[in-house]
């Protein structure tokens, strides 16, 4: 069983929902990103979505755009992000890591090279925000054969036929985008998310994660009631943005800085 499937199975057995923080690798630097990953796990994260930077993040709002700009200013590359995962795996074999980003850096590395390097580093799944399943016919089989889960987005605008096609290509979990807009938007409507998740459930047995617009313990708890996983990005990045470009933060310091995740965990488990 893959690390992601195992993670969701275990949570279900304990009657819990997955908490998935997103962070941009290399913000403020690669050493601190590694520390942050451990801190997030200590704060109750079940799976980590690790963003690799791209110069033109057209599906992201200003908070993640700035994080990506900080990361690129430190010359973070897809290869250095894979190195972070490799180092993370030397002490954590359990927490799944999903790489999230845009297609062009992957194209540039070459699909097979990327898949091989990702598996070797200990990556479990890949989510490419600007690659819909229609364009995945070359990359999808390479990733599957390498043992990587392929996670796709479903949006409030997705038609039933699209939902069906997306779910067929998905593995690990399906990521439902809670609103029309970009990451970090503020108009989360829990009721409409619930309606759309119910619709989605008819198309897939995979766990359903919800992201975009979840900013605090309260909204995390509300979403946890209706989804299998809660994804938090911009709200966490705002806390990370307060860190300096230092590589000597202690785990305790990074845990305190990301205590939002502990608050969410607590609220979701109540």
């Amino acid at each position, binding site marked *: 069983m893959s690390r992601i499937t195992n993670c969701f199975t275990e949570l279900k057995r304990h009657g819990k929902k997955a908490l998935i923080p997103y962070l941009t690798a290399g913000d403020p630097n690669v050493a601190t990103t590694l520390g942050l990953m451990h801190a997030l796990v200590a704060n109750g994260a079940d799976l980590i979505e690790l963003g690799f930077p791209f110069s033109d993040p*057209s599906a992201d709002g200003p908070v993640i755009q700035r994080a990506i700009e900080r990361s690129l200013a430190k010359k973070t590359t897809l290869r250095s992000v894979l190195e972070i995962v490799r180092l993370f795996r030397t002490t954590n074999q359990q927490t799944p890591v999903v790489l999230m980003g845009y297609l062009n850096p992957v194209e540039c590395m070459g699909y097979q090279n990327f898949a091989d390097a990702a598996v070797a580093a200990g990556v479990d799944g890949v989510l490419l925000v*600007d690659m*819909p399943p229609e364009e995945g016919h070359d990359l999808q089989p390479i990733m599957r054969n390498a043992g990587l889960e392929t996670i796709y987005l479903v949006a409030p605008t997705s038609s039933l036929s699209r939902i069906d096609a997306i779910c067929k290509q998905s593995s690990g979990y399906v990521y439902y985008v809670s609103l029309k807009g970009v990451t970090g938007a503020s108009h989360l409507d829990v009721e409409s998310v619930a309606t759309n998740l119910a619709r989605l459930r008819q198309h897939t047995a995979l766990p359903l994660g919800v992201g975009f617009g979840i900013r605090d313990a309260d909204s995390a708890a509300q979403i946890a009631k209706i989804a299998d996983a809660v994804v938090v990005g911009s709200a966490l990045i705002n806390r990370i943005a307060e860190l300096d470009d230092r590589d000597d933060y202690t785990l305790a310091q990074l845990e305190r800085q990301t205590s939002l995740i502990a608050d969410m965990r607590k609220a979701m488990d109540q």
Partner: protein
Amino acid sequence: MSEHLIHHKTYNFPDQSGHFGPFGGIFVGETLMPALEALNRQYDHLKNDPAFWAEFDYDLAHYVGRPSPLYFAERLTKLGGGARIFLKREDLNHTGAHKINNTIGQALLARAMGKTRIIAETGAGQHGVATATIAARMGLECHVFMGVDDIQRQSANVFRMKMLGANVVGVTSGSRTLKDAMNEALRDWATNVDNTYYIIGTVAGPHPYPMLVRDFQSVIGREVKQQSMKQLGRLPDSLVACVGGGSNAIGLFYPFIDDKEVRMIGVEAGGLGLETGKHAAPLSAGHPGVLHGNRTYLMNDADGQILETHSVSAGLDYPGVGPEHSWLKDLHRAEYTAVTDEEALAAFRTLTRSEGIIPALESSHAVAHALKLAPTLPHDHIMVVNLSGRGDKDLHTVAAIDNIKL
């Protein structure tokens, strides 16, 4: 079948899924996928409706002032000393460039889809002005995204857009130029997708944009074909156009694709020289990759990050290019080359002094290459250069280069 939709015997792209060979396609976040599908359906329907094209033609004739002349540049030809150089006068269009052809077509699409809010990206401001113009005429709300660096460089066009009632949104992310304006427009569209139509200004972006912008701009090449037959009794031997995103070039080239004897030459912005890396010439010096919804030749580094570009002409200052140009390059149906800022500026002055026509700096790139090529060709060679826009907007740029304060 409408004459607006050209069916070639040997070339039929894009395919059903929007691909030009390995290029093109749809690479956007899921939120926008249904919007693109809806746009594709709408265009598929309207393009078979004669009333749609009748309205398009009416607007081009009475609002834009088409057909634009095919003008024999006699003194420029003498200076070249070889091929006979003809200018396709897109600079005489309303708003001063070819951009209006496309915004008229897309505004008709927006209206048919019941959209009340128009957004657009712009670099030099020409597409922004053309969009604001058509939005004013149709009474539609209009927001134009523009990098803050471009807003500084092109203050006259910013003022024009505001006069026309558009809201000009300064973009501060990334390199703060055209590519970042396009990112921001995509973000706005994802957020306001229900009531908003995104008028992309060039033959790039996700399918169906490269196709429909091409179809609207093809009026340029269709006219050239007719004018050439009527004025000269035969087709031209070569076509020369500047390529940023490549809409004026595709507009000229596309109707000639089956006419294999007609040479097609796209001229990219060589900036300070290809060898310096400071240019905007992805076809001449880039590699295939994915940006802004399509796969095409791009300027990116070894890690896939998009590089900052340089050109004296804001309208060519873009790291990608329309996917159909990438395909025509790989098919060897069109040739692509680049001229430097300096060569374009020299051509700007030469055309102004020899013909009394002040060209846009973008179009000056095509003129510069034409002047290089003409002396190598016989005197009976007919060369058509697309004069895609007029240079009024560039007077401040040229004056600043000459250390003149206006």
